[in-house]
């Protein structure tokens, strides 16, 4: 018997030839695409630089961010409400929430946006009366209400509510049933149980997909350009319709969207780490080597 600790193993590591081959292929491809793009006479890098921080572009970016923020806030709030309705014991609430989700998930966002843009054609006046009487609580011409970013906000939020509802519902259902029982056994009412016990735990499941929703929403706002929604896309479209510098201006928009999404991705990473505390280590390393 020897008491010496064995010397550390010095083995020849496995050679990863595949990595070298992959690197060469990727570089080749990147060179091909890059040179093809730069050889185009219409990319005009100096024009991109010229427009990147123009006032109308920055104004568009501001509106895009505003639309994203409002639509996500309303969408998430409505989504939580719809999710709780769908899981409620009340059949009327359950079915109405399901119908709402069915409708707004079942029609394209683009169609909804155009629809809200032209709502005045369907309903010339928006009127709310006391049921079975002629007493109007609210009565305005539709086109006086649907001004500025209002139709865009409506379409984006209502659509987001439907998707958020499904995500929140999944999160609530992922919380162990024993949690509800424990809360009820302590004399907590259903509403309090949902607010204090279930939703905080559901957040861990809800946060990652909602982060994706924010990113998707930021890009979806570009769709409101079809009703002149004043967003970034509308801004560049308006200008390239006049000066025909389509490619450089689209590149300006793309650069802004990419930059904003990159910032959001970093935020998402931190948020997920916060809610995943104590559950699993978010370490690097892929599934494959």
């Amino acid at each position, binding site marked *: 018997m020897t008491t010496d600790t064995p010397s550390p193993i010095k083995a020849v590591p496995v050679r990863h030839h595949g990595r070298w081959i992959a690197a060469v292929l990727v570089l080749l491809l990147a060179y091909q695409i890059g040179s093809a793009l730069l050889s185009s006479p219409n990319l005009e890098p100096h024009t991109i630089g010229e427009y990147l921080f123009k006032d109308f572009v920055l104004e568009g970016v501001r509106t895009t961010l505003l639309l994203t923020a409002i639509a996500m806030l309303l969408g998430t709030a409505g989504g939580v409400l719809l999710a709780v309705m769908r899981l409620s014991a009340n059949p009327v609430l359950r079915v109405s929430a399901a119908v709402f989700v069915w409708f707004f998930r079942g029609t394209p966002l683009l169609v909804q946006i155009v629809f809200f843009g032209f709502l005045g054609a369907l309903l010339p006046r928006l009127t709310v009366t006391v049921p079975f009487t002629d007493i109007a609580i609210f009565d305005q011409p539709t086109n006086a209400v649907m001004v500025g970013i209002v139709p865009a906000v409506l379409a984006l939020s209502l659509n987001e509510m439907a998707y958020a509802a499904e995500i929140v519902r999944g999160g609530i259902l992922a919380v*162990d049933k*024993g*949690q509800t*029982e*424990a*809360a*009820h*056994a*302590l*004399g*907590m*009412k*259903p509403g*309090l149980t949902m607010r*204090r*016990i279930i939703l*905080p*735990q559901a957040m861990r499941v809800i946060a990652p997909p909602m982060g994706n929703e924010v990113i998707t929403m930021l890009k979806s706002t570009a769709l409101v350009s079809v009703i002149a929604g004043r967003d970034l896309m509308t801004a560049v479209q308006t200008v390239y319709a006049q000066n025909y510098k389509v490619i450089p201006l689209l590149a300006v928009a793309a650069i802004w969207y990419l930059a904003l999404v990159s910032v959001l991705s970093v935020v998402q990473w931190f948020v997920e780490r916060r809610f995943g505390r*104590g559950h699993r280590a978010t370490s690097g390393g892929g599934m494959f080597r």
Partner: protein
Amino acid sequence: MTAMIRAEGVRKSFGQLEVLSGIDLQVNAGEVCCLLGPSGSGKSTFLRCVNHLETVTAGRLWVDGDLVGYRQRGDRLHELREREVAERRRDIGMVFQRFNLFPHLTALGNVMEAPVHVLREPKAAARQRALALLDRVGLADKAHAYPAMLSGGQQQRVAIARALAMRPKLMLFDEPTSALDPELVGEVLDVMRDLAADGMTMMVVTHEMGFAREAADTVVFMDGGVVVETGTPEQVLGDPRHDRTRAFLAKVL
């Protein structure tokens, strides 16, 4: 003696499956009642009926004189509203097999939750009481630990403190030691013995024959959804009258 729990012909079915087929029993204030019996005998279901986590299908069940889940007007029963059921449950503590601590709250947060949000106690007072309760179950030093950082035995003791924080008049234990490593069972049973000695009315579903023998005033042996026999621990565990009880005890003792 006032009856804390009184059951008359309590039945419970899940669809076609009848789990309780007419339970009659009584637990007086200050008594400890242990429910014994094989898995599937309906012990846990009966326990869950007592605080209306399960709805009784037939028969009558009273806790401290109040009909569970209903209000009687003349000869008609009216279902209680969720709010009223919640109010009744405040006075009944429950400890679960799987602890069911709130994982997003610390031990202290778990114990303070219901006093602050259900009883609307001032935070400072609730905190004082919660710390005293954690001390009572021997976990004063774990007040700021999250459940995931505690052993099973520690989690179950926090769960007991959490239930006690509502100052219950009745404590229900649903196999409180069945999910624990054998070496951790003792610490939980010690807390329960202490509670029983303090005069708490308790109904305990358990497989711990030692605990039943020492701490119980009444032992109820159930099988197939009915009470097979009831009596003092000496009588039911020492000298069972029914073959079914004898066969069960021969296997578990």
